[in-house]
């Protein structure tokens, strides 16, 4: 049994080794890490080669750039796409006539062959991510001044993220027997998951933002009512004018509050539906964002949001514009809190459940089919 499993893994490695794309991706990953290493950060600011410029929160921003470029862009987009391209043919090749006969005629059960082949397919992305994660760990320590062993969690996290897509690719590859169809449809599914994530993100921010606005207008109406009570008691002419202005402003705020409150149930309803769909599908983006939790503590994120707000939020004197902008900023911060509040079980557990269902279907078709 062990002999067979080892043989299948060695074969998977030989297969990868024979694919030029594997080596191209590996070299590109190395070049990418090396290029990123040109940029460094210390408590005072950034330095690129022999240039240096001061920047507050340089280390925090350096980690942000690292998270966005190395993890977000390279590992979870470029590398994952190349991995999908490389691995899309594994199952269509396996089940092609003349090839599958050789495997099925061995004392190897179909479920075991299916699972071992599936696991060996993840070898591609494991090797790629291992290189980038170790390189990134050293890079962040040497050039960013932060030694974060948690970064090595990128290996299981990114492999986990890729496994969602690979499961879909395997299922479609077995159904269609075509590498191209498997690849294109898997990418299409990935696009759908991303769209659902973005819709959830937008609606979450919108809800937080609308909640903020509703509270803001309620507070404004309360303070206007309190002020109007005081002013009604006054007999000064200036106060009579203020009463008129404040009444108008209160009416305007009341109207806006009603508009916001009228829109909130629909937004909540839509968000509930999208959230339900999102709960059922793999959370590709959020899975890789889990790595941010090891890179940034909750305090760091809160502090970052606060500093960003204080850096960019200045009163324009336009009350409504400021309120809308503040609501948007609060929506962003609220979303960050919500995302970090979502449990690992919900993010990874539900995604793995989806993957397990897809794999079960793929395995069922694989095991039941006549070749």
């Amino acid at each position, binding site marked *: 049994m062990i002999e067979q499993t080892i043989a299948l893994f060695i*074969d998977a490695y*030989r297969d990868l080794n024979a694919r030029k794309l594997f080596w191209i991706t590996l070299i590109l990953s190395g070049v990418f890490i090396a290029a990123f290493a040109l940029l460094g950060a210390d408590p005072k600011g950034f330095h690129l080669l022999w240039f240096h410029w001061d920047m507050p929160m340089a280390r925090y921003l350096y980690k942000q750039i690292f998270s966005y470029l190395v993890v977000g862009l390279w590992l979870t987009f470029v590398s994952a796409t190349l991995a999908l391209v490389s691995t899309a043919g594994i199952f269509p090749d396996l089940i092609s006539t003349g090839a*599958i006969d050789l495997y*099925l005629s061995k*004392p190897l059960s179909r479920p075991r062959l299916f699972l071992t082949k599936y696991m060996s397919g993840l070898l591609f992305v494991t090797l790629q991510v291992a290189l980038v994660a170790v390189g990134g760990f050293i890079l962040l320590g040497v050039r960013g001044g932060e030694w974060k062993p948690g970064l090595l969690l990128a290996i299981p996290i990114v492999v986990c993220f890729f496994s969602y897509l690979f499961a879909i690719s395997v299922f479609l590859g077995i159904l269609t027997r075509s590498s191209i169809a498997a690849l294109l449809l898997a990418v299409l599914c990935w696009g759908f998951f991303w769209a659902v994530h973005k819709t959830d993100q937008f609606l979450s921010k919108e809800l937080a933002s609308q909640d903020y606005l509703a509270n803001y207008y309620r507070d404004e109406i309360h303070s206007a009512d309190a002020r109007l009570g005081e002013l009604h008691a006054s007999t000064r002419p200036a106060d009579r004018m203020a009463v008129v202005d404040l009444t108008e402003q209160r009416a305007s705020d009341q109207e806006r509050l009603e508009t916001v409150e009228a829109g909130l149930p629909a937004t909540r309803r839509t968000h509930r539906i999208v959230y339900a769909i999102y709960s059922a599908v793999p959370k590709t983006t959020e899975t890789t964002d889990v790595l941010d939790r090891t890179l940034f503590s909750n305090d760091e994120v809160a502090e970052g949001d606060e500093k960003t707000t204080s850096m960019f939020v200045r009163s324009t004197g336009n009350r409504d514009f400021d309120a809308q902008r503040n609501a948007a900023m609060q929506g962003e911060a609220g979303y960050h809190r919500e995302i970090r509040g979502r449990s690992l079980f919900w993010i990874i557990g539900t995604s793995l459940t989806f993957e397990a269902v897809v794999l079960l279907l793929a395995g069922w078709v694989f095991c039941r089919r006549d070749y």
Partner: protein
Amino acid sequence: MTTASSDPAIDLHQVFKVYGRRVHALQGVDLRVNRGEVFGLLGPNGAGKSTLVKIMMTVVRPTRAQGKILGHPVGHKPTLARVGYLPENHRFPKYLTGRQVLDFFSALAGVDRVTRRRRSAEFLDIVGMTEWADTKISTYSKGMLQRVGLAQALVHEPDLVVLDEPTDGVDPVGRRDILDVLNRIRGQGRTVFVNSHALSELEAICDRVAILVKGRVAKQGTLDELTVAKQRYEIEVAAGDAGDGRRRVRAALPADWKESTEPARVIPPAAAVAPTSASGPPPLNYAIPAPPSLPPRTTIVDRGTLRGGPPIELAGLTLRIETTDPQPVQGIIDALRSAGLMIVRVESVRPSLEDLFIEAVTDPLTGQVATPGAASAARAGGTK
């Protein structure tokens, strides 16, 4: 050494396979392969040969199947460690070398690393591929791939070797080498199951054969068993006028002739005219359709029975006596000579495997050769 024991290597009963409710690929196949023998499976395209082999190798799931392979039920995976298989049109991973192919697939068969290394070298040598052992198989010719494929089927030293078209695409030297290897395997007491269209090769190496037609076993047995009933004597006479010659033959023989009311059979022009000894014996089954380039000819075959003797047939000026006993032939020769007929040929004819094959796939009533393909639902019940 063939052993017709109570423990056959393959013992299949009532194997059925229906694809998608309409295509009846196998319709109750019964097959028995004794240990230590070389068994040949023949049949026209679409007869169900590959389906049957794939069912044995668990590549295809039977609709219904009873029986055992090496003493275990069909589909018993651990048994496959004792079975070697060379599929038709096999596709090995292109990135492997010949040696790696053997190493990989014997590992899947559960052979340990040290043994694999030793046997890979040994079997590459047996199939004459040592020189190419470390070359990527993507550079191999079809014949070389077949050799490596054969080595792959043997490298774990199985008790049963199942080969699907093993000599397909192999040059004559390669074919001879492969047949030598098969003989060598038989010499080691292993059972070989060969599915092939190369009838002459099967005839040369098989102890027993089965002919599969439209999902059913039409014939099964040793070559002797299958051909003995079809052995006959042929006497060919010469006459200036064929019609007159036939009348004289019929008049000379003490036989009860039946005027054939059966449909005329299609025979090739070459067989309808008197064959010469140079062209070899005519086939027993004369219902081979004429080549497409030639117009089909039909002839009425006069049939009868010698009084107190075997059945006889008169086709053209050739008299066929369905017997292996030379005794009644003597009397016929005497009678023909007494009638003044000139005998130009007397021959004892034993049908070849090809004759058996053609006969098995030919409808005895219409003389039509079975069309390729499995039986559909509509005609599944009427084939036999």
